[in-house]
């Protein structure tokens, strides 16, 4: 099954991203009764056919971010922070904090449900792919994400409770029809990295970017949710991440990525690819979301 020749930016191709998302979801739990396709050779062949150009385009788009970081320092933690400090993209959290309407905040929450209702699942595939101190630290971080022994603190469950309180549908995939290609691409990247052993370094880098750029934005998003008068249960989810991710940032940079690169030095650039790909796609998705709100307003957003 060849891809059409005229595809330009795959991050904006709805059909490709949706197809890839459906194929990846076979490895989670969202399609009840349809799990037989996970190892169906035909489905795997299509998945590989779609994910190869997706990965290639991400590598090409982030090559400069990675090479700049490699030149900036020899230390992987400094390099990760370099990529983060120079990543492009609008400040979506700031907009949600200060300016978004109630409807725009709800739109954001609905679209993000594609990830937050299965939060941390993609990175869990990596635990079995690494060893030593990096494995211990990754398990420690995931344990906290999965509620640290308290089911009511399971982050995906907190998000579902928040959605319900805000009058949104807490069922996984409820908003898939209005999720744009760029947001699907953000999710597909996590599955691509989590489900391929050869991409384990990039998966850890992705986690580093995710956790290291979460604490301050979550504080802003929580404040935005409170500003537009949405329920406390929804804000709680983001409040939870302010303190949690401040700790996770330290764990993922030093104990996960630092230890991993020490044990597998040839993976250093791969870790940075994961960091850069995460932030590159986050930037594109944020831009697309803000752009859709401008279009809907048929005018310009206040800056």
């Amino acid at each position, binding site marked *: 099954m060849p891809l059409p020749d005229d595809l330009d930016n795959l991050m904006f191709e709805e059909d490709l991203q949706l197809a890839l998302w459906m194929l990846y979801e076979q490895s989670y739990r969202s399609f009840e009764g349809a799990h037989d396709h996970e190892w169906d050779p035909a489905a795997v062949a299509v998945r590989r056919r779609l994910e190869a150009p997706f990965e290639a385009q991400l590598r090409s788009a982030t090559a400069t971010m990675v090479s700049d970081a490699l030149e900036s320092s020899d230390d992987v933690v400094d390099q990760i922070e370099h990529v983060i400090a120079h990543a492009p993209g609008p400040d979506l959290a700031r907009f949600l904090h200060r300016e978004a309407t109630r409807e725009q905040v709800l739109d954001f929450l609905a679209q993000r449900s594609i990830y937050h209702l299965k939060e941390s699942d993609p990175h869990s595939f990596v635990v079995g792919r690494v060893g030593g101190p990096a494995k211990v630290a990754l398990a420690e971080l995931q344990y906290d994400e999965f509620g640290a022994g308290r089911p009511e603190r399971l982050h995906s469950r907190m998000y579902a409770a928040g959605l319900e309180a805000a009058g949104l549908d807490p069922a996984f995939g409820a908003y898939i029809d209005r999720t744009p290609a760029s947001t699907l691409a953000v999710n597909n990247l996590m599955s691509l990295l989590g489900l391929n052993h050869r991409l384990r370094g990039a998966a850890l880098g992705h986690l580093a970017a995710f956790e290291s750029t979460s604490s301050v934005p979550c504080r802003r998003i929580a404040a935005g949710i409170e500003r537009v008068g949405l329920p406390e249960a929804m804000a709680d989810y983001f409040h939870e991440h302010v303190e949690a991710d401040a*700790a996770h940032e330290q764990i993922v940079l030093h104990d996960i990525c630092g230890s991993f690169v020490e044990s597998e030095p040839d993976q250093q650039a791969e870790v940075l690819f994961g960091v850069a790909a995460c932030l590159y796609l986050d930037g594109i998705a944020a831009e697309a979301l803000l752009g859709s709100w401008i279009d809907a307003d048929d005018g310009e957003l206040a800056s």
Partner: protein
Amino acid sequence: MTRAYSRAGEQVRIEQHGDGPLVVRHADVVVTDDGREHEVTRPVVAVCTCAKSQRLPWCDSTHKAVRDSTRKSVRDSTRNPVRRA
């Protein structure tokens, strides 16, 4: 000096990377300089060391904003800012 202890007598581990927060593991209580005791509800917590957090004693990553604005003002004062695409 911030201290931490475990009621079960577990060995508490405290680490710090650079000027970041203290990373505290296996603690039930963190004791701040003013003698106040703070219950730990997570397996690992980050304790603020810059005193700028809005959730003291816990780190909320405000130190990064402080650090970034310091860097920015240093960069601005050179009148030769490094620009990146």
